[in-house]
C-alpha cells in the first residue's frame, strides 16, 4: 500500500466517524416532528383532561376559562353515582360476552384455515371484510338485520321455530345488550381468527408427526399439542381483544345510543353523554379519567406480558 492510499483510508475513516455523529443528530431531528406532535395533541390533552376533572367546568365556565377548582368532587360524584357502576357492569358484560364468542369462533375458523386448501387464501381475504367496514356502516346493517318488523334475524328464528311473533331486539331492555354484542362479535371474528391463525402456523409440524407416530388421535393431538402451544398467543389475543372491546363506542352509539333505559350504556357512552349531552364537562372528564386508568392498566399488563413472552 502506498503512502497515498494509507492517507486516503485514514481520511475515509475519519469521514465515516463524522458521518456517524452527524447521523445521530439528524436522527433525533427526524423523530422530533412526530414526537412533538404526539406530545402536543395526545399527551397534553390527556393531562388536560385530568385538569378539567378537578374543576367545575360547565357551559358557563367553559368559555371564560376560569372554572373553580373543586378537588376530587367530580370523582366523588362519579363514584357515588349508581349509573357509573351500572355502566361499568355493562362494559364488562359487553366485553366479556363479545370476547367469549369472538375468541371461540375465531379459534374454530383458525383451525379450519390452518391446513391450506384450494380457495383458502381468497376466503381469508373475505374474512377481513368485517374488520375493514366502517363501524357506522356495520352498525346500520345490524340495526336492519335485527329489526323487529322486517328483520332477517326474526324471520330466520321464526322459520326455525325459535321465535313466535315479532321481537324488537334493540328496543327491549332485556335483549338490546345481546343484540349489540352479536354485532360486535361479527366485527371481532376476523381479528381473532387471523391472529390465532398466525399462532397456529407457528407450531412445529414435527410435534404433530411425533404424536401421530405415538398413536395420538386428532382429538388428543388438539388437546395435548395445539392447546398448550397456543396458550401464550391466546392470552395475547384475549388481552388485546379486551383492550379494544372495552373502548368500543361507535357501534353501540349508532345501534342503541346507550338505551333503552341505559341497558347498553357502557363507560365510553356514559362519558360521551355526560360531556356532550349534559355538558357536565367536569364529571365527564372524571368518568373519562377512570376509563383511561382502566385502559392504561390493561395496556401495561399487555406490554409486560409481551415482553415476558419475548424474553422466554
Amino acid at each position, binding site marked *: 500500500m502506498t503512502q497515498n492510499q494509507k492517507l486516503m483510508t485514514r481520511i475515509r475513516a475519519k469521514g465515516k466517524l463524522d458521518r456517524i455523529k452527524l447521523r445521530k443528530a439528524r436522527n433525533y431531528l427526524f423523530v422530533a416532528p412526530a414526537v412533538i406532535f*404526539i406530545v402536543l395533541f395526545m399527551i397534553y390533552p*390527556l393531562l388536560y383532561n385530568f385538569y378539567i376533572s378537578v374543576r367545575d367546568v360547565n357551559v358557563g365556565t367553559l368559555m371564560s376559562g376560569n372554572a373553580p377548582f373543586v378537588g376530587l368532587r367530580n370523582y366523588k360524584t362519579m363514584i357515588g353515582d349508581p349509573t357509573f357502576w351500572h355502566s361499568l357492569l355493562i362494559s364488562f358484560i359487553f366485553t366479556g360476552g363479545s370476547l367469549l364468542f369472538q375468541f371461540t369462533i375465531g379459534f374454530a375458523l383458525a383451525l379450519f384455515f390452518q391446513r391450506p386448501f384450494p380457495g383458502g387464501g381468497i376466503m381469508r381475504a373475505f374474512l377481513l371484510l368485517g374488520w375493514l367496514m366502517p363501524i357506522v356502516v356495520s352498525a346500520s*346493517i345490524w340495526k336492519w338485520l335485527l329489526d323487529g318488523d322486517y328483520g*332477517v334475524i326474526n324471520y330466520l328464528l321464526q322459520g326455525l321455530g325459535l321465535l313466535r311473533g315479532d321481537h324488537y331486539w334493540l328496543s327491549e331492555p332485556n335483549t338490546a345488550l345481546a343484540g349489540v354484542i352479536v354485532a360486535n362479535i361479527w366485527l371481532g371474528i376476523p381479528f381473532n381468527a387471523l391472529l390465532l391463525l398466525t399462532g397456529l402456523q407457528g407450531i412445529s409440524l414435527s410435534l404433530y408427526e411425533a404424536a401421530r407416530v405415538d398413536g395420538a388421535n386428532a382429538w388428543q393431538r388438539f388437546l395435548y399439542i395445539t392447546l398448550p402451544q397456543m396458550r401464550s398467543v391466546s392470552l395475547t389475543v384475549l388481552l388485546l381483544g379486551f383492550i379494544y372491546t372495552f373502548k368500543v363506542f361507535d357501534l353501540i352509539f349508532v345501534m342503541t345510543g346507550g338505551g333503552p333505559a341505559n341497558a347498553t350504556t357502557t363507560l365510553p357512552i356514559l362519558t360521551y353523554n355526560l360531556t356532550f349531552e349534559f355538558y357536565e364537562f367536569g364529571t365527564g372528564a372524571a368518568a373519562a379519567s377512570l376509563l383511561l386508568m382502566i385502559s*392504561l392498566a390493561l395496556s401495561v399488563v399487555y*406490554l409486560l406480558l409481551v415482553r415476558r413472552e419475548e424474553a422466554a
Partner: protein
Amino acid sequence: MSMLVRLYRRGYGRTLVGIIIIAAYVFPVYWMVATSLKSSKGIFAVPPHLVPDPPTFVAYSSAVIHNPAIHKALINSVIISVGTMALTLILALPAAYALARLRLRLAGLVLLLLLISQMLPPINLAVPLFVLFQYIGLVNTYPGLILADTVFVLPFAIIILRPFLLSIPGDLEDAAMVDGCSRLGAFSRIVLPLVVPGLIAVGALAFVLVWGEFILGLTLMTSNKMYPITVALNRFIGQYGTQWNNLMAVSTTVALPILLTFVVLQRYIVSGLAAGATKE
C-alpha cells in the same frame, strides 16, 4: 346439487365447507347491497326476497344522487382523509426512518409510547380536544379534525413503516453517498423507491381508518355542513326510520370506497397488517 357432490368427491370438501362459512359471514354485507337495490315495497316483502326482484336504483337516486347533504359529507370526508393521510405520511416517514436506522436511546421509549397510544379509547381524547380546540377556534374546522385524526393514525403508521425501513440495508445508502450522492439524494434515490410498498400500505390503512372514523367527527364537527360521511350516515338512521332501502343505499355508498381500496390494494394492506402485527 350434483355439481356440489362431484366437487366434494374430488377432494374439495374443505373448499365447500369454507364457501358455506364465508357466505354466512359475508351475508350482512350482501344484505346491505341487496336491500339498497330494492323498492320501498320490496323491503317489506314476506318472506324477504333474497335477490332484489326486480333490482332498482330508486333508493340511490333519492337518498344519494339527489341528496346534497350526502354530497357535502362525502366531500368533507375526502378532504379530511386526504389531509390526514398527507400529515401522517409527512410525520411518520422521517420518524420511522430514524427509529429504524439508528439505535436512538429514546427509540424504545418512543415505540412504547406509540404502542400504548394505539390502545387509547378515542373518547378520552375527544373530551379534552373539544375543550382545547374551543379555545383556539379549531372546533368545526377541517384542520381541527385532521389534527385529531392524525393522533390515532400516526402511531399505527410509524409502527407499520418501521419494519419496511429496517429491511433496507444502511450500507446501500452509504454506497450511494460514496458514489457521490448527497444525503438527500441517497434517501430519495435509494430509500424512497424501496419503501413505496410500505407507503402504499400506510396510505391505504390510514384511508380505511379515517374514512370510517366516527367519534372525533361526531364531537369536533358541530354543524351539519361539516359532518364527515359517517356522522351524516348516523343522522340518516334517525331520519329515515324504516326506509331501509334508502339507509342501505347510503351505507353502501359509504362502504364502497373502502371495498374498492381493499380490492385494489389488498396485497399491500395485508402485508402492512402483517408487518404491524409482527412488530418489534
